[in-house]
């Protein structure tokens, strides 16, 4: 074991963690307000990645800039999904709601397969290959940007929830669903907005990921499970916690890769997941919901 290896593992782990946190913040928000575990989260991100790809290929729009277009677009998509599929079933059993989002995930993933086939696409921008060394450790600029984006998103969401009316309504709904209606909050609209906002977040995540990953109908599988682990770790509904949780998961995975044999790094993450679920289900940083 060399220090170089350790340094690299830590650096890549943080960069990876930033990406996980980025993907997970929207999921955390959705869970905090709507109390549903959204299995379709990764699929929505995948659609957003395709949107980013097409904007780049057809109109030459830089992926980072395309967020200006895709975020609002997916906000609307999120609202539509929530109103059509999720809201009518809000009183259904929790496990049925899980299955709803699972059905949505299957639908979207295969919609992409039907429309664009299964071959991999890449967005190649000038800075795709940019990287520098931090000592012995490689830092890829695009991943760094994504991690920075994660921090920005967490800050942005935090500000949104503290400072704006919509944000306050979201928090009210998350903390006190019955009370929120009593003080005149348009509950159904806010619920829709939360799914919309969560989708907008994951769309932005997708845009930030495309420069260093690839675009294909099954990309969700690389991030879905990790996103859930991160949300649980960070505390459901706590997206600042999601950011921190992301870093923890990324570090665990990267260190696991450096020091464990085989492909056992996945195990490290799941062990942490189970331990947190058993011992501190409200998350390391506490969420808006206990059990």
């Amino acid at each position, binding site marked *: 074991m060399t220090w170089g290896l350790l340094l690299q593992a830590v650096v890549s782990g943080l960069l990876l963690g930033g990406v996980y946190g980025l993907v997970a913040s929207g999921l955390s928000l959705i869970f905090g307000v709507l109390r549903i575990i959204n299995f379709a989260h990764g699929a929505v991100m995948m659609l957003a990645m395709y949107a980013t790809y097409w904007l780049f290929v057809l109109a030459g729009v830089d992926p980072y800039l395309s967020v200006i277009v895709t975020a609002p677009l997916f906000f609307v998509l999120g609202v539509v999904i929530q109103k059509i599929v999720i809201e009518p079933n809000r009183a259904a059993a*929790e496990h*049925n709601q899980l299955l709803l989002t699972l*059905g*949505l995930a299957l639908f*979207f993933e295969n919609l992409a397969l039907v429309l664009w086939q299964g071959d991999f696409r890449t967005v190649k921008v000038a800075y795709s290959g940019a990287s520098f060394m931090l000592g012995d450790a490689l830092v890829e600029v695009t991943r760094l940007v994504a991690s920075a984006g994660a921090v920005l998103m967490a800050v942005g969401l935090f500000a949104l929830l503290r400072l704006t009316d919509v944000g306050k309504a979201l928090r009210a709904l998350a903390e006190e669903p019955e009370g929120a209606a009593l003080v005149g909050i348009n509950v159904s609209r806010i619920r829709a907005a939360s799914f919309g906002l969560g989708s907008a977040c994951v769309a932005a995540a997708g845009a930030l990921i495309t420069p260093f990953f690839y675009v294909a109908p099954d990309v969700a599988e690389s991030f879905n*499970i990790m996103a859930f682990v991160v949300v649980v770790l960070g505390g459901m509904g706590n997206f600042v916690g999601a950011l921190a949780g992301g870093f923890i998961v990324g570090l665990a995975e990267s260190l696991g890769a450096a020091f464990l044999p*085989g492909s056992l790094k*996945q195990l490290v993450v799941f062990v942490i997941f*189970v331990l947190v*679920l058993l011992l501190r289900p409200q998350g390391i940083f506490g969420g808006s919901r206990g059990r």
Partner: protein
Amino acid sequence: MALPPLLPKYHLEVLISVIFWAYLGIAWNLLGGYAGQFSFGHAAFFGIGAYTSTLLLLQAGLTPWIGMLLGGALAAAFGLFEGYLSFRYGLKGPYFSLVTLAFAEMLRVVSVNTKAVGSSLGLVVPSAKAAPAMFMFAGKLPYYYIILVMVGLALALTWKIGRSRLGFSLAAVRENEDAAETAGVDALGTKLRAMALSSFLTALGGTFYAQYFAYIDPTITFGPSVSIGALLPAIVGGAGTVLGPVLGSFVLTPLSELTRYALRGRAGADIMLYGAILVLVISFLPQGIVGLVRERRVRAGRR
């Protein structure tokens, strides 16, 4: 039941498939439907069953008929372990589902990385010669009868439990665990019993799979497709009912065959439709097909 010997091979295959998934659905239903504990990781038990009987067969020449029971016992033990941890720490609803998912995934990762169980190369189950004492048959027909018997027994068990004291406790726990506790029901014990039965039965299905398809590997056995495949028939057919999983499988399996065949020009179109149907079924038939039938009957009775 006499029809199968006359069926062309292809149709017999589909029929066996339908009954197989019905069986897994029934096994899942004991925990998911009756006890109300929604497991997303039943593949863990399936895989334990498949690997146990197969390893014992390959290493010790033990007949899968016995290996199956040992696999079931091991799976039940694992289920109790998993269940005890989860229930003791108060995990409910989606949190419980996530934990079961995690356990199944962990088993998958461990088997991928363990050479002794074949890692990703999997295990080939010998099947060249027919040897009924070793759960190996020449044609498909014997497997059909075996899975039919398994379903029959599982259905009988489910029905019996539904009418027993355990069934009463299960229903109480499912409806409102706290109230049940107050009323003197041992919630933990009840749930654990359901878990043990459910995991035992699921493991038997794993052995059947291994003997029928003659090949297992970590993804086939511990992967999400088994976990999801086990719960869908019960949900669509009606969780917590005896015949629900059977109905569900008889609807789902041919449905997926049909959509696959009809939409085979476009890759993915069939699963897309499947996902849409899933959403529709959950939205409009939250109690499954059985629930729909009951509702109709109740309404008819009211007139």
